[in-house]
C-alpha cells in the first residue's frame, strides 16, 4: 500500500471506528462517500446513523451517499493529517465535495478524534552491528598488496574494541586491540555509527576532535575504499541524488604600489621600513601613502627594529575549522602585538609568535624577527617573531 506522509489511506479508514465518538453523533444520520484516486486509493463509504458507524469499501459506484468527497490519495492523507490545508485543497480543486462542504468540515471534527499517523520505530544500528559486518563488505580488489591492522576503540553504548586485519587480500575482524597496530582510531561508538551511516562527515568529525587517530594517518584515510558501504538491513535503497563538489578558482592580481613595494624590498634585505608622517611624526608600519591621522602625504622612510617589545597578545586554543575547507590551524597559536624599536609608541604590529615560546610569553617581552630561509621581497619573508633569548638571559 502506497504511503503518503508516513501512512496510508486504508489505515485512516481502518482506524475510523476507534476514533468515532458515538455520543457526539446521536443526532447524525448521514452516509459519506469517499473516493481517493491514484496509488493507494480506493472507495469507501461511512454510514453514520444514531450513534453508530459502519465503514465499508466500495467496488462500484458510490450510491446512497448524501455527500461524497473526491480527491487523490496523497491529498486525502495530507488533509486528514493537517499537512495540507482543507481550504487550499478545495480552492485548488484537488479536493471536491459533492454536497455541503461546510457542513462536513463542522461535523467531522465533532464526531471523530483526529487521526494520527502510526509511529514508526526508528531502526537503531549500533557500531557493533556495523563493525561485525566489515569482513562481508571487504573488497579484495581494492586492497591488493595492502597489509595493515586497524584498531578501533569505540567508547560508549554499542561500542567496544576491535582489530581489523587486512592481509593477502583477506580481511578479518577480531575482538580487542592487537599490538602492534598500523593505526588506532578512538572515538565514541555513536560517532563511528554516524560516519558509517553518512549522518556525520568524517572530515568534520576528525577536525573537530571527535576522532583521535594514532599511527599512520594516511592508512586511516585509506580504509574507507577497502569496504563497501554499510547498508541498514531491510532499508530501502535511498534515491540517488546528484550533488557536485567543485572548487572554483578566481585569479587575482595584487599591485603593491610604490609604498608597499618599498616595504617588501626592505623585507628582502631583512629590514623594516616604516614611513614617518611629516606632520605628527608617527611611524607607520607597514607604511602607507598617507598618514591615516593627519591625511597628508608621507614621503620619508625610516628603518625600525628589527627587535621590538610585546605590548599585549592573544593565545588561541580553539581550533576553529575553516568553513570552506575544514582545515584547522595547529593550536595553540599566539598573535603578539609588537612595537618595533624606533617606532612611535602606539604603532603595534600583529605578528605570529613562535609556538615553542608561547609558555614564556609575557607583556613587555623582547622579541626578534624570524625570517624565511630565503627572502625574496614578499609577504612570506617574515615568518613571525620569537622571544629574544639574548635579552631574556640578561
Amino acid at each position, binding site marked *: 500500500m502506497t504511503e503518503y506522509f508516513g501512512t496510508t489511506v486504508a489505515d485512516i479508514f481502518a482506524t475510523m471506528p476507534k476514533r468515532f465518538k458515538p455520543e457526539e453523533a446521536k443526532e447524525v444520520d448521514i452516509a459519506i462517500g469517499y473516493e481517493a484516486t491514484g496509488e493507494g486509493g480506493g472507495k469507501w463509504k461511512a454510514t453514520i446513523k444514531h450513534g453508530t458507524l459502519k465503514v465499508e469499501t466500495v467496488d462500484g459506484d458510490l450510491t446512497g451517499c448524501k455527500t461524497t468527497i473526491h480527491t487523490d490519495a496523497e491529498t486525502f492523507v495530507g488533509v486528514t493529517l493537517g499537512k495540507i490545508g482543507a481550504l487550499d485543497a478545495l480552492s485548488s480543486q484537488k479536493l471536491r465535495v459533492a454536497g455541503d462542504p461546510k457542513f462536513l468540515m463542522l461535523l467531522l471534527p465533532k464526531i471523530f478524534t483526529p487521526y494520527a499517523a502510526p509511529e514508526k520505530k526508528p531502526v537503531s544500528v549500533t557500531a557493533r552491528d556495523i563493525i561485525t559486518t566489515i569482513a562481508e563488505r571487504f573488497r579484495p580488489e581494492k586492497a591488493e598488496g595492502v597489509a595493515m591492522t586497524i584498531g578501533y576503540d569505540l567508547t560508549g553504548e554499542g561500542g567496544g574494541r576491535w582489530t581489523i586485519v587486512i592481509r593477502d587480500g583477506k580481511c578479518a575482524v577480531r575482538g580487542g586491540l592487537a599490538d602492534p597496530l598500523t593505526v588506532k582510531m578512538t572515538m565514541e561508538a555513536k560517532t563511528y555509527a554516524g560516519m558509517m551511516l553518512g549522518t556525520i562527515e568524517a572530515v568534520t568529525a576528525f577536525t573537530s576532535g571527535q576522532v583521535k587517530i594514532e599511527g599512520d594517518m594516511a592508512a586511516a584515510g585509506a580504509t574507507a575504499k577497502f569496504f563497501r558501504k554499510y547498508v541498514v538491513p531491510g532499508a530501502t535503497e535511498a534515491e540517488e541524488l546528484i*550533488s557536485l563538489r567543485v572548487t572554483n578558482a578566481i585569479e587575482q*592580481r595584487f599591485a*603593491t604600489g610604490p609604498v608597499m613595494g618599498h616595504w617588501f624590498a626592505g623585507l628582502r634585505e631583512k629590514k623594516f621600513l616604516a614611513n614617518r608622517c611629516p606632520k605628527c611624526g608617527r611611524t607607520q608600519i607597514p607604511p602607507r601613502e598617507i598618514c591615516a591621522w593627519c591625511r597628508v602625504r608621507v614621503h620619508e622612510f625610516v628603518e625600525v627594529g628589527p627587535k621590538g617589545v610585546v605590548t599585549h597578545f592573544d593565545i588561541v586554543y580553539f581550533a576553529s575549522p575553516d568553513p570552506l575547507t575544514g582545515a584547522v590551524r595547529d593550536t595553540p597559536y599566539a598573535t603578539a602585538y609588537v612595537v618595533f624599536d624606533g617606532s612611535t609608541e602606539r604603532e603595534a604590529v600583529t605578528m605570529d609568535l613562535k609556538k615553542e615560546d608561547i609558555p614564556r610569553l609575557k607583556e613587555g617581552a623582547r622579541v626578534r624577527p624570524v625570517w624565511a630561509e630565503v627572502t625574496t621581497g614578499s609577504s612570506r619573508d617574515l615568518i613571525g617573531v620569537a622571544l629574544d633569548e639574548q635579552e631574556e638571559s640578561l
Partner: protein
Amino acid sequence: MTMQEDHKDCFVLEGKMALPNQYFAGRLGSRFLIAIRDRKKIMGLKCNQCGKTFVPPREYCEKCWTKIADNWVELGTEGELVNFTVVRYGDRHLPKKPPYILGQIRLDGADTPLVHIVEGIDPREVESGIRVKAVFAAKTTNTIMDIDHFEPV
C-alpha cells in the same frame, strides 16, 4: 602639481582564490541526469492538462501550474535544431574551443528546446531545421555533458 613617485620597487602579486562550492541538481535534475548517464535516455516531464512536455524537467507546468513532477515521459534522442548561435570567444570555463555551435534542440516528443553543443557540421553551414542526434559521452561526469554533443543525423 605633478606627483613624484618612485616605481622601482613596485610589483604585481599573482593570486588565486579557491572557492569550494557544492551544486545540488535537485530531485528531478538528478533523475534526469541519471537516466542520461545510466540508460542513455533523455526524459522529460509532461503536463497532462496542457499536453506540453518539458525538457529539462521542471516540477510545475509553466502554463497551468499543475504539479507534473512524477509524469516522466521518454523523449527521442533525435530532434530538430530550432535555433543556434556560434560561440566565437574562448575562455577557460567554456566547454569547447571556439568556434562552436550552441544549439536549441527540440527533441522528438518534447515541446521545449534543450540547449546543447552541435558538432559535425561547419558553423558556416549550419541552419535551423536540420535533424540532429545525441552522442552520449563515453566518460560520464554527472552533468549535462553526459550527452557529449549533438550531431547531424
